[in-house]
């Protein structure tokens, strides 16, 4: 059994929302990296 870590797209698809970080100091890659690092696979 292997579960894949989520990323922002996982939440966007699930909640039907868009996280637009284009004009912010936060990158989508940084968020995805945090989600992946916290997930124990």
């Amino acid at each position, binding site marked *: 059994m292997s579960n894949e870590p989520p990323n922002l797209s996982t939440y966007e698809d699930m909640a039907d929302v868009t996280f637009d970080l284009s004009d912010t*100091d936060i990158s989508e890659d940084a968020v995805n990296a945090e989600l992946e690092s916290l997930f*124990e*696979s």
Partner: protein
Amino acid sequence: MNRRKFVLSLGALAGGGAAAMGTGAFSNVEAERDISVTVANDASAYLGIQPGDGPNGNYADTTSNDALAISLTDDNNNIGSGVAGGEGINTNAVTSIGDIFKIQNQGTQEVDVAVTPLAYGDIDGQVFPPDIDGALAVLLEPQNPDEIEVDIEWGVIWPGIPVPEDVSFIGIKGLSPGDELRFNLVALAVPSSAIGSVEVSDEIQITARQP
């Protein structure tokens, strides 16, 4: 006071069938903060909802109903004794908190679990045309499904569990007695003017059913 609030509240309501039978087994559990009737506190109920074992468990607080509540605010009672004074997340940053709370099957039978919602947010301003003073997003993430060998489905519910009203949820298949699924929190707030303008004060619902 300029501050940002984030409160997730958890409570427990055990199904009446299990209590009436007195077997110690449970077939159904629904946990929701608004339902303040409890048969046991969250820590010792058949579906245990507890702070994480590590220091990040201090971000979880206890309400007057002995229900667990995640509190990244100045209302957290652990400030000064576990939380060293912080009262909210940073702006223009990604805040990640691992192992903030956990769900443990403290019954006798394997159960399937649904957790909802997993995405929370608040926006101050208007989206179209864009004029945003503040935006806050909070995400919950299961931490160790592979360790305890449960199958996670994002946005899919398992047969027998009512479909949650919120669209963001996970189904957890096969949580065995004694197993605990830990949860992480990732939050982001932008821009700096978000301080004091956005907050999340919501609920998380946890439903467990015997397969």
